[in-house]
């Protein structure tokens, strides 16, 4: 059997891998994509949010046939204590536009669709094929191909795109990057709760394809840096909670117990009452931010998406960074290829340069101090403040004959008692700096 | 099937088809049950079907006939006598040496011939390996409708057979009609219908039918037959007490807890479909629509949620005990006694309690 050679091999068929494979194939490169799962998305059964703008840059007319669940018209940000939530809701009819900005999707279906597009663009996609190692040139160490768990030898390529996800072992085993540290990876546990369409419409005040997202912080994460979330799909609600892996370990908390508590929170429970839980999954999310980004390229390889820790934990954006990094890596490879240059690390710096100029790295740089701040101060940000905010709100709402001025004083006093005047100022300043 | 919470299903499309029986089918009358005779024995499912066929025939005001295909000899005539004992009004019999062992070709020929000559409106067969092999060929030859694995048979107001069976992988039930073709064919799995009372009766009218078939026209030859060893497998469907485990047991090794309890009370053990799919238990232990249907006096389901496809396989049990951690599990909808607890922890306690209760020693103590 004559060994077959490709311009590029993409490892993984998630958002970043599909974006890379699609972009390269549609520029005429000979692309092979290898996916471990039974089909693209089979390892990713969950609901998610998809950002239209970043997908438009890859597939402009995706709305024609992509499996989209609901477009988001409302976002709720909740600060929760054990019995209450204080929230900011933003809803606007402006989001009911002809080309809506954000959608909920079910990854299993979306990824399958995306993969079909990749194939239609001309790439060869093999599922149920696990790459077992990167093959390097014995002389110069350049990555020249991959070996898989199927019989039949090595597959060669000019460049290998590692889109293997946050816990992908190929790059780490090959020494291209370090294993992500527990404090830079969050573990999210999610469930799909199936509900009839009408029930979802009633409970969330949406109609047609409109959808709503709830994100919640507070005592639900038991003083760890974490976030609970709920997305409405067409006939289901995706819900889950995530915290840093290191926090779970230190606090000896079980993710399942946290999810259970979140589901039973008096503000969440009625939203999912009577639903049928069908899918349960745990998922790792890179949360290290800018400081955790590894080396992104080398001789014969680039790394994209979650594998490269490209995830904006503050804005809960992952898939758009993944898609964008995949697309940019692909565009860089296409340019190098067009110049007939070899896929050396030197030439692939182009990827880094292009990525640095994009929103991906700019956003991550903006929030570079945020993960550490929230992490080291997690009990203040995720327990103390939520409790205080709830007390303050209740104090404000409850009409019991107390003069308003005394109510305000009581609230201020409670904040100072818990965090001291200096603590409040310093938290505010640090938060402001991290945000800046 | 009168009080089901039915819903109109616009997608079905066919539901609107009207009954307009063509002229050539108008003289098709009477209910037939295929009496499955293999190696001298009548399969009990045939008697279960005679019980069901009796009701249909009475509703329609027609006769119930047993159809016996077999080699010349005593066994075949015994099968005829049994058909009468279980309620047949008359019997059709085709005797030929080449019907000694079941083979598709001669049996299909004999059955389709018989139907063509005597024109039944309903033909019921057991959904055994033999019955399914035969029914598909017969229905295709006759170009008529066949509803497989029915769980309920009824006659509707205009005299059509309403055959109900699980659908969508056992998530829902559906009622199927063969409106404009005859005979209306259905298969029913063993143990789905109750065994009717046997009553010795003189042999009634027997219609002998000749089929022109010669052994050298039949390609397929039976070279041998190896009966199953008396394994528990064969006994599951007819066991008086059955203990079964489901996904709630969490791991393959926990099935030992089910087996332990079964052994303690002298029961057969089984499992739900997902366990077979996971390879935790062999397929012949599967209980439910696609496995065995059971009608024991006591059925204990441990960690089984109770999907419809399982339900239809156990509903005939006299007493169903369900053990499940989920208080909303569907199994509590049709079990008689429920315990909301973890079967992994509870099964050993139950085994111990049964053993304590049933050991001669403890019985003696109770007596004294």
């Amino acid at each position: 059997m004559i060994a077959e050679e490709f311009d590029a091999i993409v490892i993984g068929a998630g958002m970043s891998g599909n974006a890379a494979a699609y972009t390269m194939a549609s520029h005429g490169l000979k692309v092979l994509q290898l996916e471990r799962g039974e089909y693209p998305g089979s390892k990713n059964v969950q609901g998610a949010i998809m950002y239209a703008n970043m997908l438009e840059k890859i597939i402009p007319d995706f709305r024609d046939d992509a499996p989209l669940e609901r477009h988001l018209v409302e976002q709720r940000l909740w600060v929760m204590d054990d019995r209450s939530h204080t929230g900011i809701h933003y809803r606007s009819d402006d989001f009911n536009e002809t080309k809506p900005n954000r959608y909920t999707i079910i990854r299993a279906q979306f990824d399958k669709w995306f993969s079909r597009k990749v194939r239609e663009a001309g790439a060869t996609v093999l599922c149920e094929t696990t790459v077992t190692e990167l093959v390097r040139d014995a002389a110069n160490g350049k990555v020249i191909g991959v070996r898989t768990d199927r019989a039949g030898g090595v597959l060669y390529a000019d460049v290998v795109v590692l889109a293997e996800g946050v816990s992908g072992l190929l790059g780490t085993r090959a020494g291209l990057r370090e294993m992500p540290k527990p404090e830079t990876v969050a573990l999210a546990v999610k469930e799909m709760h199936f509900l009839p369409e009408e029930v979802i419409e009633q409970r969330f005040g949406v109609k047609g394809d409109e959808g709503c997202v709830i994100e919640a912080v507070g005592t639900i994460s038991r003083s760890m840096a974490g976030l609970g979330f709920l997305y409405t799909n067409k006939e289901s609600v995706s819900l889950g909670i995530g915290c840093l892996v290191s926090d779970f370990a230190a606090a000896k908390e079980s993710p399942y117990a946290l999810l259970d508590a979140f589901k039973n929170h008096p503000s969440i429970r009625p939203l999912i009452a009577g639903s049928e839980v069908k899918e349960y999954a745990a998922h790792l999310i890179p949360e290290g931010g800018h400081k955790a980004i590894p080396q992104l390229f080398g001789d014969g390889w680039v790394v994209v998406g979650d594998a490269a820790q490209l995830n904006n934990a503050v804005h809960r954006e992952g898939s758009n960074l993944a898609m964008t990094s995949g697309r940019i890596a692909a565009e860089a490879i296409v340019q190098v290829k067009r110049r007939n240059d070899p896929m050396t690390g030197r030439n692939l710096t182009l990827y880094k340069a292009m990525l640095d100029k994009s929103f991906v790295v700019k956003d991550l740089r903006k929030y570079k101090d945020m993960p550490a701040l929230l992490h080291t101060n997690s009990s203040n940000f995720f327990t103390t403040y939520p409790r205080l905010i709830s007390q303050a709100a209740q104090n404000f709402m409850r009409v019991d004959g107390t003069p308003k001025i005394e109510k305000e004083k009581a609230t201020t006093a409670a904040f100072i008692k818990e965090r001291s005047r200096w603590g409040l100022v310093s938290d505010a300043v640090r938060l402001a700096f991290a945000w800046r | 099937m009168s009080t089901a919470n039915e819903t109109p299903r616009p997608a079905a499309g066919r539901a609107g088809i009207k009954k307009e029986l063509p002229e050539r089918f108008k003289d098709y009358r009477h209910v037939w049950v295929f009496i499955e005779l293999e190696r001298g024995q009548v399969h009990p499912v045939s008697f279960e079907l005679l019980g069901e066929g009796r009701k249909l025939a009475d509703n329609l005001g027609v006769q119930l006939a047993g159809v016996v295909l077999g080699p010349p000899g005593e066994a075949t005539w015994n099968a005829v006598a049994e058909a009468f004992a279980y309620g047949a009004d008359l019997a059709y019999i085709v005797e030929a040496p080449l019907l000694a062992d079941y083979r598709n070709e001669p049996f299909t020929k004999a059955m389709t011939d018989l139907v063509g000559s005597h024109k039944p409106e309903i033909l019921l067969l057991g959904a055994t390996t033999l019955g399914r092999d035969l029914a598909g060929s017969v229905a295709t030859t006759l170009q008529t409708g066949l509803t497989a694995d029915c769980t309920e048979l009824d006659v509707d107001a205009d005299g059509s057979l309403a055959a109900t069976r699980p659908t969508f992988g056992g998530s829902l039930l559906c009622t199927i009609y063969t409106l404009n073709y005859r005979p209306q064919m259905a298969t029913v799995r063993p143990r789905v219908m109750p065994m009717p009372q046997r009553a010795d009766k003189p042999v009634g009218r027997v219609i002998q039918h000749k089929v022109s078939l010669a052994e050298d026209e039949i390609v397929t030859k039976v070279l041998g037959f190896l009966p199953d060893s008396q394994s528990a497998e064969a006994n599951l469907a007819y066991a008086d007490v059955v203990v079964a485990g489901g996904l709630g047991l969490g791991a393959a090794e926990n099935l030992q807890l089910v087996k332990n309890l079964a052994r303690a009370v002298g029961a057969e053990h089984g499992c739900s479909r997902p366990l077979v799919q996971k390879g935790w238990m062999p397929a012949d232990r599967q209980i439910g629509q696609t496995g065995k249907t059971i009608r024991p006096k006591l059925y204990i389901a441990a960690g089984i949620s109770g999907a419809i496809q399982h339900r239809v396989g156990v509903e005939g049990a006299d007493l169903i005990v369900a053990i499940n951690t989920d208080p909303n599990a569907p199994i509590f909808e049709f079990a008689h006694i429920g315990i909301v607890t973890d079967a992994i922890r509870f099964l050993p306690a139950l085994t111990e309690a049964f053993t304590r209760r049933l050991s001669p020693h403890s019985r003696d103590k109770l007596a004294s």
Partner: protein
Amino acid sequence: MHIVICIKQVPDSAQIRVHPVTNTIMRQGVPTIINPYDLFALEEALKLRDAYGGGVTVLSMGPPMAEDALRKALGYGADRAVLLTDRYFAGSDTLATSFALSQAIAKIGETFGKPDIVFTGKQTIDGDTAQVGPGIAKRLDLLQLTYVAKIASIDLATREIKVERRSEGGTQTLKSRLPCLITMLEGTNEIRRGSIQDALCAARSQVLKWSAADAGIEELTRCGLRGSPTVVKRVFAPTPRAEKAAKIDTAEKTLRDVADELIAAILARQPALEHELAFNNGA
């Protein structure tokens, strides 16, 4: 030897949900798989090809998305895939399905050589009827060998085939002749893993898509809804029983007490069991 194997793409029944209010099927997000019983037939077909030479053609009838199932079958090493897809086939019952499939098999025979064996799985997991295989055999006048546990021998010169087939209460050994239709019993083998070359080849081969006309079907009235003698009149959830399970309270009780209480409850409802259980235990 030319082998045709019929497969069906089915929803993974473990993941089917029923709408709690309207009792309709919620199809969203239910993954599809190759009917698991068909994989045993496919592996057997591939084994025979490896042993006797020739080719394996995989045939499926279904919506366009059933192409995924066929592509997967190619990945296991099948040589050719045909998808019979046409709106005329919608709503087919077993009779109409076996008609369309047998017509397509005849067309495959004309185009790529007459099949020596047609394989199907024992049954599907969504329909569970086990009737399409026998239907195809009858229509194509193939010898019918159902529930085959083992293909003992094939003699291509004399066209003789010996199989072991599962029958009620035992195993029958049959001698028959090609061409035949075999429905393969489950658990008889394990589907192979194709090599990287098989996988690449599958990813690049075209699945042939045949309409009714492509398959040479002229009698459209014998297809789909119109060709189906059976009529689904209604689909419904089972009647909830008036009486739900009597729950034994477990709060603040030892498991031992709960177990004793359960046995007492069992015997209260079925007194005869006391004798039965004791008898069984002693035996």
